[in-house]
């Protein structure tokens, strides 16, 4: 397990604005944030304050208007597009509020997907995917399609999918926002367990105060800035 004090992600003076014609909507206005390896971090804040935007930029899905996101010493936005996609594939796992599973593929294929992008299909990938699904408690559901799974099950498949390439960081955008209490708790426990076992870093955007109480550190956003 790597050292907890090591900085994994450094966000430097991050700005993000959206433009709609003349008007400028400034969402992020100078975010500075350091995230350490194996940290379990919750990002909270009012709706529309830019939590998701921050998460997207951290995950290289979106580009900042100004500022840097450094993984180690690497400013990720200086990478060319193809390299950035490869980086996302290898180093970042995403879990969204909505599962975003591909409906044409069964649970096993969905989990294997990220690995299949870079590696030709082989048994090892599917074995790994099956092991992950077993770990999230879906050993019996490998060949089920998303439409045949419950909300909690889908979200667990989505978590397994985020882990297939053993990313350094898992970014979760309100992973239990759409689940009932029991399913939420199951997902939470899964996340804690994962964090404890794998030492992966988790950044979780949430409204859930219960969840926020159980993490290593809480970051609160207000007016486009970190306030806590």
């Amino acid at each position, binding site marked *: 397990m790597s050292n907890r004090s090591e900085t994994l992600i450094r966000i430097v003076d991050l700005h993000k604005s959206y433009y709609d014609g003349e008007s400028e909507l400034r969402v992020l206005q100078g975010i500075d944030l350091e995230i350490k390896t194996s940290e379990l971090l919750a990002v909270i804040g009012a709706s529309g304050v830019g939590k998701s935007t921050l998460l997207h930029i951290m995950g290289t*899905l*979106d580009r900042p208007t100004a500022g840097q996101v450094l993984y180690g010493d690497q400013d990720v936005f200086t990478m060319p597009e193809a390299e950035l996609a490869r980086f*996302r*594939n*290898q180093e970042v796992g995403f879990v969204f509020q909505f599962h975003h599973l591909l409906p044409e593929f069964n649970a096993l294929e969905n989990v294997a997907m990220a690995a*299949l992008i870079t590696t030709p299909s082989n048994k090892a990938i599917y074995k790994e995917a099956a092991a992950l699904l077993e770990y999230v408690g879906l050993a019996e559901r490998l060949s089920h399609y998303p439409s045949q799974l419950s909300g909690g099950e889908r979200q667990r498949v989505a978590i397994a999918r985020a882990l297939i390439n053993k990313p350094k960081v898992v970014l979760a955008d309100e992973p239990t926002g759409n689940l009932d209490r029991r399913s939420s708790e199951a997902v939470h426990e899964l996340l804690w367990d994962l964090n404890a076992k794998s030492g992966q870093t988790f950044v979780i955007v949430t409204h859930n105060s219960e969840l926020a109480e159980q993490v290593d550190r809480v970051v609160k956003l207000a007016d486009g800035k970190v306030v806590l």
Partner: protein
Amino acid sequence: MKFEWFIASRYLRSRRKQSFISIISIISIGGVALGVATVILVIAVLDGVEHGLKDRFLSNEAHVALHIFDHSFFKDYQERIQRIEAIENVVAASPVVFAQIGVFPEHSNTIQDVIYIKGIDPAQEDEVTGFSTYVTGSTDFQNSELIEKAAFIRDETIAGGIILGGRLATRLGAMKGDVLRLLIKLVDIGTGSLTPDLANFVVIGFYESEMEAYDSNFGFIHIDTAQKLYNQQNRVNFIFVRLTDAELAPQIATKIEDAADFSVLEGMPNARTWMEAQAALFSALQLEKIATVIIEALIILVASFNIASTLIMTVMEKTKDVGTLRTLGASRGNIMRIFMIQGSVIGTLGTMIGTGLGLSICWLLSTNTERPSYWYILALVVPIVLQFLMASRHALRSKGGWKFAVGVLWLIGVGFALYCAVRPISLVDLGLSQIYQTHQLPIKINWVFVIFINLLSFVICWFATLYPAWQAANLKPVEALQHE
């Protein structure tokens, strides 16, 4: 590439029950297939017509016709023929007195028709145009029994026998043994007015080459008779030449002109090739073919629009999935390739099916086999349809994994049923056999063209995939994710 194939093939099949994309894939494939099939079929028929015409035309037409520009007579033709026949690739040459004359039927004093007359030496003409193979009746112009009989009955001078084109004879109502009066020329007998110089000919046979142009416009008489009538002893105005290969005509025509060696006084020689003689017909066919190719290319283009719109719809439907794939680390290139593969598969399948369809319709049109009886069709089709119905039910109940396979089987089944229902198309049934003078639509498959059309179709379809794929690749991941 494996990853892109994995996704694209699943999108083509589309397992989701509520999805209609797989049906759209089938429709797109059908669009391309129909386009390609029509092109192959139409071009095969056009080629067939041209080839058939050429074939029939060349079998009884000289490849090169040598004459002097003003059609005047020239002497020493046998010597000239010997020199021409010495040219490489020349099979034979035949002297001809060629003229246009008026016809008076029996018991009539008005001109009924104007026909072409070829005064020929039957033996020499046979070598060039296969003359006697098309004649029913006698080819002995001078000594036919019919001539003597007619001369005896009418008590008139008979110049000789004439062989009439079959349709011309029908038009003139001329039977074998009838006497035809031909207007050879008008003579000034010194009174200031012109008197017709007439000659009587006895119909001794009919010429039936199945070439409309000859059968309804030509009459044949002996060369000696013709020379006498025109007062051109030992002279002719045409030499017809047959070559080993009709396509060589343009090159050899000039050699023939040289070999004929006309003096300046005789006039300018002209060796007319069959291509020049029939230029109007064949250039019309050529033009028709070019126009057809353009129209057919447009048809394929339309089909390719079909592919493009299918892909654009797929992209729209899969926008969210594209977003997801991007978060999983698929690059723009990956996304682009997914949709290009999808489109290319549609294009390739469509082209292949179309080629198969086109070629089999060609085969169907050119084959002479009879339609199988209805009982036979029933015995074959009914079990197949029942089987498919059962399979389809099973497929629809099962989770749709078999749907694609059943769809393909259905296509084959329906195709087979159609095949059984369609009789090899006969021109007799269509009432066209009179025009084409054949019972079967002439079909000639030009394989180079088939390959060309295949390539063209592939390329057009491939281009059709570019825009939708590019569109998918440029979706912004975050926006795509939030797309509903």
